[in-house]
């Protein structure tokens, strides 16, 4: 059983950005619901094709509220507040660009490209240069990772190699300087990990990336309360409901691919177009038990918790935290971490009939739900975040055997690295168990939905 709540939302959307993507996105959304297109400067696109409101020459000052009811402060000569249901940030595609390219046609030279720690965007530019220069010159490319993850990337890489460009892979930054005893000759020394020794490459022209500063969107992250992984998720989804950041910060998408993203974001905000959204309710805070310690408020990876003052509250402060249904994604971190045990599941699953000894994030263990022929009891949680110390201890105590906890692999958590949080809980519990002379242990496993039941069985040592 699931509980849903009908939430009233503001259908209006703010599109923030001064580039062509923002213009196209605002146009699409204006066909379905009210939209405000705003940016710090007036962009050079015809407003005639856009039917919504515009606001130029102001900067984002603050964002208050939650999904469906944001108040955005725009900073101009005075602060102007606008009410919107959703916010879409469209950063200018930014990143390093190649510098040092020969201005005209050159022939018979040694040209060295140093492409360390760069993104796909640099490679889209570099391959065409490498291919054309390699026809009449000797071209070396020192790189830590050849990036081909864009349209025709593989083909361009093959062509460059066929033209004679030599790619040297290394994990060390090359030493670049003049040749010993010959101050007019340049050379680079680099450890070639392919052959396992240092090589020296004399060169005439050095090409390397240079960072170009633009409006890269990063500066809005703190203001909007966004996490570190929000720059390139499809289709612009962030850790906060109601806030999207246009993906592809490097600008490698083709126009057609961009259209897909624009349509996908527009479809997401269209949920709010009617002014009502039906959202699932996962957890709620019992205000009478709430100690107002702010743990949930500080920790919520989706910023779904807000203060709520109400004279009816019976607690010490007549104030409590409240979970916003629309913003909550149900990871259960607040439930596991609340020191006052004031957070309750809205729908509590019936207690398992057999004592489990594997407690698993259902995202990590999705492949196991219907697993058969396994000789263990599994209990699923919405995320590693909700596998709290007490549920682990309860299971240890009841089962009197080692307990396995299963989280997503590093970087795969959908709720901002809750596998790391589970890791420190497990470490603390094992230290306490050890100091108390208890031989039982908690064992942390990484798993992904792609893995079969047999993988877990092998890991917990129960393979038949």
């Amino acid at each position, binding site marked *: 059983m699931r509980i849903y709540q009908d939430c009233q939302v503001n259908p209006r959307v703010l599109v923030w950005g001064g580039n062509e993507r923002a213009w196209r996105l605002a146009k699409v959304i204006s066909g379905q619901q009210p939209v405000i297109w705003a940016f710090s400067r007036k962009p050079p696109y015809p407003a005639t094709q856009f039917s919504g409101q515009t606001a130029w020459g102001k900067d984002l000052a603050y964002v208050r509220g939650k999904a469906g009811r944001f108040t955005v402060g725009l900073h101009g000569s005075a602060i102007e507040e606008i009410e919107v249901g959703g916010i879409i940030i469209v950063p200018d595609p930014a990143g390093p660009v190649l510098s040092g390219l020969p201005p005209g046609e050159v022939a018979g030279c040694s040209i060295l490209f140093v492409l360390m720690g760069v993104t796909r965007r640099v490679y889209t530019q570099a391959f065409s240069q490498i291919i054309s220069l390699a026809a009449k010159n000797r071209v070396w490319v020192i790189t830590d990772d050849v990036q081909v993850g864009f349209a025709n990337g593989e083909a361009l890489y093959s062509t460059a190699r066929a033209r004679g460009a030599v790619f040297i892979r290394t994990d060390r930054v090359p030493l670049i300087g003049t040749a010993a005893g010959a101050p007019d000759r340049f050379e680079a020394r680099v450890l070639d990990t392919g052959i396992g020794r240092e090589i020296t490459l004399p060169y005439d022209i050095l090409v390397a990336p240079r960072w170009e500063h633009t409006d890269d969107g990063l500066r809005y992250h703190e203001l909007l309360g966004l996490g570190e992984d929000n720059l390139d998720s499809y289709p612009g989804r962030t850790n906060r409901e109601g806030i999207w950041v246009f993906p592809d910060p490097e600008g490698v998408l083709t126009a057609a691919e961009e259209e897909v993203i624009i349509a996908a974001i527009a479809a997401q905000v269209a949920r709010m177009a009617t002014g009502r959204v039906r959202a699932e309710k996962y957890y709620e805070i019992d205000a009478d038990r709430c100690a107002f310690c702010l743990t949930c408020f500080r920790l919520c990876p989706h910023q779904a918790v807000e203060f709520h003052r109400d004279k009816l509250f019976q607690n010490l402060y007549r104030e409590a935290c409240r979970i916003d249904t629309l913003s909550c994604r149900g990871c259960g971190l607040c439930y596991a971490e609340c020191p006052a*045990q004031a957070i309750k599941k809205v729908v509590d699953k019936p207690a398992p009939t057999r004592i489990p000894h594997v407690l698993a994030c259902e995202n990590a263990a999705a492949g196991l739900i219907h697993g058969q022929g396994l000789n263990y009891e599994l209990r699923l949680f919405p995320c590693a975040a909700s596998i709290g110390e007490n549920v682990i201890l309860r299971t240890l105590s009841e089962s009197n055997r080692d307990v396995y906890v299963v989280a997503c692999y590093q970087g795969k958590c959908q709720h901002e690295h809750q596998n790391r949080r589970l890791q420190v809980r497990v470490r603390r519990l094992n230290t306490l168990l050890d*100091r*108390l002379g208890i031989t039982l242990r908690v064992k942390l496993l990484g798993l992904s939905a792609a893995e079969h039941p047999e993988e877990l069985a092998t890991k917990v040592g129960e393979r038949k």
Partner: protein
Amino acid sequence: MIVGELKPVEEIVAKVKGYSRILVVGCGGCVTVCQTGGAREAETMAHLLGMALRDLHVSLDWTCVARQCEFELLEELKPRLASFDAILSLACGVGVQAVAEFFPSSPVIPGLNTTFMGMPVRHGRFEERCQACGDCILDLTAGICPVARCSKSLLNGPCGGSQNGKCEISAEVECAWHLIYERLERLGRLDNLERLVLPKNWAKSRDGGPRRMVREGLVPDGEE
């Protein structure tokens, strides 16, 4: 708020040995906020002790009251106490003593070490801010307490041990007087430092013995 930290678990086990029915009582006040003695921690402790003392057949249960330092709020424990022969209190020293006073015939064991009065500087990290000296001078020191935050509690600082903003006792301890200087400079009140602060009346602190505070206007004459 009052910050307390969990006693070493081995010590707690040693203290509760010999009792066969133990009630772990959390406190919903400061120690809930500092995550060491609230409802959740009371349950954690009961599970841990239950496993550690499994062979001794000790029965354990846990509960939490809103604040252990109020007699009225301890009332709810009364009906349960007949079934327990000891209380493990996860409150600060004040709460433990209130429980002991309210239940004269029940042994009370402290589960926390009351550490200091402080605040969370970020989630899970607490720092001392006040030493209850009984005579506040924060107006002179730009809102930064030299009594609690200077290792020597100097009233006229800094001393020669201030190095690059850190105290000589540890590179992790900020020099309170360095902070005071920086903040006074920002406030344009560096002249505060030219005023010599005379020796403090420590009789208002612990040196004057156990303290008592009477809020005037609350108790009718003759009723005290």
